[in-house]
């Protein structure tokens, strides 16, 4: 008698489920991300998946530095979150140690995902030995952010898409000189502004931070030195290093003390929602007129790009549920929604226009033009990126030159040091 009741109840439960839904053996997925700006949008998309799947999604935001400490501790101790973001700095290490769920079979059986529809650099980044370990969540580019109010105040023309780095130097000089009494600088950049800063100028001049085979660098080459020499001239009229290290370039810009900074598309929301956002505008990064023909030719304007990946833990309780969530987030619907909500640009090709329209009143098309009109290079990475990336930012790396921008010899020496630091770090990998 009891048995029959149980069978009846089970049958009732199965019938009650919508036909499309697959029954998962977990009731909740733990998701880790590091960017609080993106939480609301991603939670919204994940909630839609919850409606279909019946599995709750709990998103935890852990700040960038602790995110990796926590994930590494979790990976060592077997306690990783179910689904989480991957980044070019560390992906190689996680993939080689088989800590991420192999997605190959799932992708093959999934109609919603075709890897050809995504940014190639991001797809390749999360592929190790032919195995796909993460799906592209997004991609980002870099643009020049300027404060129109300061340009007006000091009577300097706004940046345009035709600007070279020399034009930026001229404008920064004019503003720094005119604004000296107010403590206003034309431009501010820290050694830590690499992907969103000085890496770009290095590529414009034809050098590479990390070569295409990920085994070397050309930062110490003549091209690399020419690029950093141009940057040195800009540094001479920019906010001093102690100021950018103590206060931060973002805070300087938002306090109206610097007229221009370079920024990544992942930061738009932070400036869009800040107090004086009506004064802020974006232009494409300047280019380097290396062949001196007065026009921007292919290879003269680069923007770094990078993309996060959605990955799952290799020991996730229900891989089907985890993949289903990843697939939903990376499907055309999820990607379009991510762009429309202004969370980030898509990892999928062709959803960027939706992103441009996500910020009424602010023209952010410079980020899209950067890839349509300029060239992109993938954020330089090796197996253990942080080792050399941190060293380049500190004393013994480029910090010396930032500290003493009036001496060209110091910058040239810093380029040689950087060459040695990167080569040494790669040799130790």
């Amino acid at each position: 008698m009891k048995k029959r009741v149980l069978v009846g109840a089970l049958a009732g439960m199965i019938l009650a489920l919508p036909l499309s839904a697959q029954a998962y053996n977990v009731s909740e997925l733990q998701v880790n991300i590091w960017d609080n700006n993106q939480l609301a949008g991603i939670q919204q998309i994940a909630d839609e998946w919850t409606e279909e799947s019946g599995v709750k999604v709990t998103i935890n935001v852990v700040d960038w530095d602790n995110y990796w400490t926590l994930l590494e501790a979790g990976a060592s101790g077997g306690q990783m979150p179910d689904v989480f973001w991957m980044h070019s700095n560390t992906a190689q290490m996680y993939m080689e140690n088989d800590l991420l769920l192999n997605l190959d079979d799932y992708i093959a059986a999934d109609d919603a995902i075709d890897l050809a529809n995504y940014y190639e650099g991001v797809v390749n980044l999360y592929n190790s030995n032919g195995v796909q370990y993460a799906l592209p969540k997004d991609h980002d580019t870099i643009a020049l952010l300027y404060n129109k109010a300061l340009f007006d105040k000091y009577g300097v023309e706004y940046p345009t898409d035709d600007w070279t780095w020399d034009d930026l130097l001229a404008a920064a000089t004019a503003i720094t000189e005119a604004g000296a009494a107010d403590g206003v600088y034309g431009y501010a950049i820290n050694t830590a502004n690499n992907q969103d800063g000085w890496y770009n100028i290095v590529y414009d001049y034809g050098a590479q931070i990390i070569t295409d085979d990920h085994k070397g660098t050309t930062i110490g080459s003549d091209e690399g030195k020419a690029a950093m020499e141009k940057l040195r001239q800009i540094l001479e009229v920019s906010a001093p290093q102690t100021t950018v290290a103590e206060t931060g370039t973002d805070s300087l810009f938002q306090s109206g003390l610097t007229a221009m900074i370079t920024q990544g598309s992942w930061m738009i929301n932070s400036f869009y929602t800040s107090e004086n956002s009506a004064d802020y505008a974006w232009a494409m990064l300047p280019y380097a007129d290396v062949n001196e023909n007065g026009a921007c030719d292919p290879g003269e304007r680069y923007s770094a790009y990078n993309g996060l990946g959605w990955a799952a833990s290799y020991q996730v309780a229900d891989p089907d549920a985890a993949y289903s969530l990843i697939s939903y987030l990376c499907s055309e619907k999820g990607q379009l929604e991510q762009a429309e909500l202004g969370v980030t640009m898509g990892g999928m090709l062709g959803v960027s226009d939706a992103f441009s329209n996500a910020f009424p009143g602010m023209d952010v098309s410079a980020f899209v033009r950067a890839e349509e009109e300029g060239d992109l290079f993938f954020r330089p990475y090796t197996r253990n990126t942080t080792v050399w990336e941190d060293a380049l930012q500190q004393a013994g790396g480029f910090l010396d030159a930032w500290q003493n921008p009036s001496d060209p010899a110091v910058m040239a020496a810093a380029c040689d040091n950087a060459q040695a630091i990167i080569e040494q770090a790669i040799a130790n990998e």
Partner: protein
Amino acid sequence: MFKHMSPKERTEAKWGLLFVAPTILGLIILNFYPIFNTIYQSFCKTGDFGRGNTFVGLANYSKVLAASETWQSFWNTIKYAIIEVPFGIIIALILAVLLNKKIGGRSIYRTIFFLPMVCAPAAVAMVWKWLYNTQFGLLNNIFHTSIAWISDPNIAWISIGVIGVWSIIGYNMVLFIGGLQEIPGDFYEAASIDGANGLRQFFSITVPLLSPTTFFIVQTRIIGALTIFDLMFMVMDKTNVALKKVQSVVYLFYQYAFTNGNKGYGATLVVVLLIFIMILTFVLQQVEKKVVYHN
């Protein structure tokens, strides 16, 4: 081990062990296991995620001892201790003596001085970071100066030390007040009758009778100061020019073990620090026998 005991003693011993078992277990799992694992790792070239450690003998040690940044960070740590320990103790002692007297609002003052101890160290550091800011900081605004408190390598170590002193005086003060209350009041009465003034009483009664407490604080604070990490980590940006002249040994350990993922090298750094602290503690114990006054 229970053989030579009477049945009653045996039962007592068993119960005694049972009661301390949670502590013993906690120490083994949370302290001893990590200590021995760290020492083991310091002899290894560690693999990613704690896998594939290969034994390399003393290779890490020769690298650590040969690196100039190791000695620089040891020197930085010692400089920090030279500020934090003496000033933290002298100021706390004076405050404790004053707040041990029957003055109005005594408990309010005690609470105020103890407050930094209750605040999260990260929050304390963030507040000081902005106080010290060259452009917007309150300090430079009040004094109309433009001193780079935390970016000038000649000043930054003092600035960090000041935060350390400010954070610790409350805790030291409470310990001193506890010590002061154990000194019998008769001593002071007798001294007054003999005509000793307040200052004389302080140096002839308070200081010697307080010496066990003072020594306890000196010893624990030296160890505390040598393992300092959070102040430098929170106050100074990674791109701060003064960082190399201020970063402590534990900061360097964090950089290698957690940021660069080189656990073996990091483990070696802390083992060297551990040995250094052990030697120092041994020396201090010898000094204690000579200096501290026991009645």
